[in-house]
């Protein structure tokens, strides 16, 4: 009943441990060498002193910290609102493009036109057009809040990217999956909802994260219409004090959100795969 690993197995485990250790050691040494080399290269460059004074000033970092934090809170809010909207819009557009019913032909056309259009226009133009153009129309009942207008613009842009990511995932599902769902008499919508989409979404999580992190960065584009978010706050400080450190502070804010998010999804995905394969 009780099982204890044999001597040979213990030996093998020791060998595996040694191999792992070896690999970790190699990885560490290579990483350190490369990192140190890069740092030395930068630090030894002729203009390094000037760059350091301009971008790495501790006192300026401290002084601008609070103002940029306030701006970054706007970025976060836009991101939090836009992200779910982008996912929903992207999924809906992708599904719309996969429909086959003749009644839905206009919808397919609309979805295709939408992706083509908004993938093709630089996001900053969409932001400017929405932020300035829509209020200028003077329509009653339409918000003139720059926050909502620019969020809307970003959702439009990223919805188009994300729709294509979803569509790629849907197309990658083997047709036998659809066949076996249909053989169970599931409707096309049910097949999509319960069989195809769940598998498709899992496959596209990494590129999806790409777009979401990119969206998070592009919230800085709203500074183009004068919203005082993190980048704008940093530039403002830079303009007054002739020091670029706040730009790095702002960059750090973006990183602090993006990196853990990516690590978290990586980890979730790996756990899911392990669960399915029963390891």
């Amino acid at each position, binding site marked *: 009943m009780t*099982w204890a690993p044999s001597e040979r197995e213990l030996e093998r485990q020791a060998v595996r441990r040694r191999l792992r250790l070896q690999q970790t050691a190699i990885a560490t040494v290579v990483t350190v060498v490369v990192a140190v080399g890069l740092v030395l290269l930068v630090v030894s460059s002729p203009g390094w002193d000037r760059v350091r004074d301009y971008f790495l000033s501790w006192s300026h970092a401290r002084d601008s910290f609070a103002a940029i934090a306030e701006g970054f809170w706007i970025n976060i809010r836009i991101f939090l609102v836009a992200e779910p909207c982008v996912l929903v819009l992207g999924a809906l557009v992708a599904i719309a493009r996969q429909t086959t019913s003749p009644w839905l032909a206009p919808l397919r056309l609309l979805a295709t036109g939408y992706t083509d259009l908004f993938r093709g226009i630089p996001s900053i133009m969409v932001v400017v057009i929405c932020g300035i153009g829509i209020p200028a129309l003077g329509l009653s009942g339409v918000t003139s809040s720059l926050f909502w207008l620019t969020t809307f613009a970003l959702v439009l842009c990223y919805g188009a990217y994300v729709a294509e990511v979803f569509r790629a995932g849907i197309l990658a599902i083997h*047709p036998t999956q659809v066949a076996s769902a249909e053989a169970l008499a599931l409707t096309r919508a049910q097949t999509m909802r319960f069989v195809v989409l769940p598998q498709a979404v899992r496959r596209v999580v990494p590129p999806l994260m790409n777009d979401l992190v990119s969206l998070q960065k592009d919230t800085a584009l709203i500074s183009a219409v004068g919203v005082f978010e993190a980048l704008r706050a940093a530039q403002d400080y830079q303009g007054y004090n002739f020091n670029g450190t706040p730009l790095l502070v702002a960059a750090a804010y973006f990183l602090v959100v993006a990196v853990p998010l990516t690590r978290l999804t990586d980890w979730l995905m790996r756990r899911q795969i392990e669960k399915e394969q*029963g390891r």
Partner: protein
Amino acid sequence: MTATVSGLLEAKALRKSYRGRVVLDGLDLVVAEHDVVCLIGASGSGKSTLLRCLNLLETIDDGIIRFDGREISDPLVDPRSVRREIGMVFQAYNLFPHLSVLDNCTLAQVRVHGVPAGEAADRARALLARFGLADKADAHPDALSGGQQQRVALVRAMCTRPRLLLLDEITAALDPELVGEVLEIVRAEAEAGTTLVLATHEMSFAREVATKVCFLDGGRVLEQGPPEQLFGDPVEERTRAFLARVRS
């Protein structure tokens, strides 16, 4: 310690578990050169798992696997060097859907074994013809019937002329006539010098083709012997019960 009856392939005290669920529990198996070993046993008894362990697709928890005198369960052994000489046909075929039948069969020949493309294609076509698939070389796997896919999987594995073939349920999707033909080919393959280990639910197939039949139960080989003996006069009660069930 007991290197006396050393076969081509030898598994000793093999153990494999999935998340605490023990599937193989101290299994011993010896496959001599030119042997045709049939693994039989209830569904879920671990036949496929055993085959996957033998060509190192699964890491075993304990035990030793020796191939051609070398311990291949050693972590320092490069699994690819082992798999070059071991062919495998999966229970679910696992053909590459993006490649034509011919490309499925030539991929490893060309990329792994360095066979010139023309020669690889000739060999594949010859084997396909032997299996009655001459006209399917340019089709894609999804356009084939289940039985055709199964035979393509067999051709793909045989193309690289492995010393040992691991075959998982290669007759499950075939009609009786085709089973007969595959049986002929498997036999010819064995006579030509290939060693085979196959998992099967078809007792008549096992009886015809095997030099040794192993009955898997409770994670080990409960009973083994030449087919006449194992099917004719099994010793173990559980073997008898299993055979009675599948025969009725």
